[in-house]
């Protein structure tokens, strides 16, 4: 068999190299001296320009990268907490409890999976604007506490339905109310679904650009993505090195998450059809 295996293995390896080229290029460019960034097609820098990173750490418009990362972390952390709590509550009701109009509400929840965000975007913006919450983090975090991401509700419903009912029933026999049962039986058993939700929420929030751009204006409230945006319209070559150094810093948390949690990520994707 071993002789037949070399072909697929080498094809896979070549595909992988092509696929990873942009990431290697990013890393290499972040260490290039200014005059080599655009003039040389050579991937490797003639010498490593670490000053790109020290320049990058100063950030943009007087806001340091540390601050930008802190802001992003705050938003992503809030989003994770909100999604895990609110989506698991709704999912438990859909998966385990009976109430009037359950079928209708569930169908509505699933339908919102296909709803383009842009339909609700403008009125939501107007609403937050009238509440004086534009240029705060509320519009980015509050919706997550209201289970607006139907994908995660759906993911958890699917997962909870697969759990054996016996434990919950016996908890009920022992006098546990639905809240006790949810908190001490269902939630701990649903850990894989909760972790998947947490990781994807973190990564998607970290990567988000559109919502952050619409709601945040003050540079000191900027996320790392918004700071990178200031590089979008400029074409001057001098800032390329620091810009890509900052880019590397900005994807570092996602890369770390990926290495630590890749098993959950890939399995979450495979079993639920979750999109990344």
């Amino acid at each position, binding site marked *: 068999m071993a002789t037949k295996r070399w072909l697929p293995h080498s094809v896979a390896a070549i595909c992988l190299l092509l696929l990873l080229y942009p990431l290697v290029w990013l890393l290499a460019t972040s260490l290039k001296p200014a005059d080599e960034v655009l003039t040389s097609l050579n991937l490797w820098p003639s010498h490593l320009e670490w000053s790109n990173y020290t320049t990058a750490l100063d950030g943009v418009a007087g806001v340091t990268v540390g601050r930008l990362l802190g802001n992003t972390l705050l938003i992503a952390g809030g989003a994770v907490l909100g999604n895990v709590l609110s989506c698991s509550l709704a999912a438990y009701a859909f998966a385990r409890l009976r109430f009037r109009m359950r079928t209708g509400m569930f169908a509505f929840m699933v339908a919102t999976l296909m709803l*383009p965000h842009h339909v609700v975007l403008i009125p939501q913006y107007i609403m937050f604007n009238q509440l004086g919450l534009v240029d705060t983090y509320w519009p980015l975090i509050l919706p997550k*506490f209201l*289970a607006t991401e139907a994908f995660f509700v759906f993911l958890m419903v699917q997962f909870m339905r697969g759990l054996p009912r016996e434990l919950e029933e016996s908890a009920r026999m022992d006098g546990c109310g639905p809240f006790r049962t949810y908190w001490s039986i269902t939630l701990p058993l649903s850990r894989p679904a909760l972790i998947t939700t947490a990781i994807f929420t973190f990564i998607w929030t970290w990567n988000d650009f559109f919502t952050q751009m619409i709601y945040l204006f003050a540079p000191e409230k900027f996320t790392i993505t918004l700071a990178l945006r200031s590089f979008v319209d400029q074409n001057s070559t001098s800032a390329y090195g620091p810009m890509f150094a900052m880019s590397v810093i900005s994807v570092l948390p996602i890369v770390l998450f990926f290495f630590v949690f890749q098993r959950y990520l890939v399995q979450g994707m495979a079993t639920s059809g979750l999109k990344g």
Partner: protein
Amino acid sequence: MSTVSTRAPAPAEDPTQTRRPARKRRGVREKQWPAYVFLSPWLIGAGVLTLVPMAASLYLSFTDYNLFDAPRWIGLRNYSEMLFDDPRYWRSVGTTLLYVVVAVPLKLALALGVAMLLKSLGRGRAFYRSAFYAPSLLGASMTIALVWKALFNDGGSVAGALSWFGIDTGGWVGNPDLAVYAVVLLTVWQFGAPMVIFLAGLQQIPSDLYEAAALDGAGRWRQFLSVTLPMLSPVVFFNLVLEIINSFQVFTPAFAISGGNGGPADSTMFYTLYLYERGFTASHMGYAAAMAWLLLIAIGVITLILFRTSRTWVFYADEEGR
């Protein structure tokens, strides 16, 4: 249920069916209020952040509204301007359709091809599966969009590599004919998510089907057409629907590659980018709301057509012999 459709569930495939009244026989009516307590965050969100905004955006789409003055009712004027007097609107529709039609099939074909390749690997499959999936997580970020812009710019690696083969394209980013394909390739590069789903589906296909086909003298290609594709069709359908819905809403790469203005010559003015420009840059919120509603209708119609046609080509094993 067939193993294929349970392992890679298609959410849209009428999820209400899987529920059954499990404890009806008990006859004791459960109290309903705890359910509503559990649901309260979702109920508030669905009402305040989904239903009310949907109604509001429908209303706004019939008005002239700039965020500062009160909305002024203008009837269907936004829609008629869009459809009859706004060449940039049609340009954005054309660009987006071109993108969807090119990017989605390419991405799914690559995802399926690589999934089949990985299935044939014995050891190392898990490693490759994770590695191929990595771009899907990073690809949505501004960082990768900026990398892409540099790679496809004048003097970037792509033009350099192509000129190596004697193909002289110049930079794609500044070329109105090519810029949109830079965005297409960025999307195709993120084939990891559908690939992982395809791979999960492939692993559910019983191997005796292949053995039977081989006994009947079916070659590789024949096996692919007669066993793999039909058995995988629910997963293909699921990926197709999701990718199309997502592709209509592409924003970040178009924003980054065009420098935020859909350029050069509006060639990367994607639908959502134009919507953003009309609503938030030019302060025509009513117009943007109307654009959002047409997008919703378009996605709804396309999804409906896909679901209707799926009856002829999506094969659910459990429906056999009913």
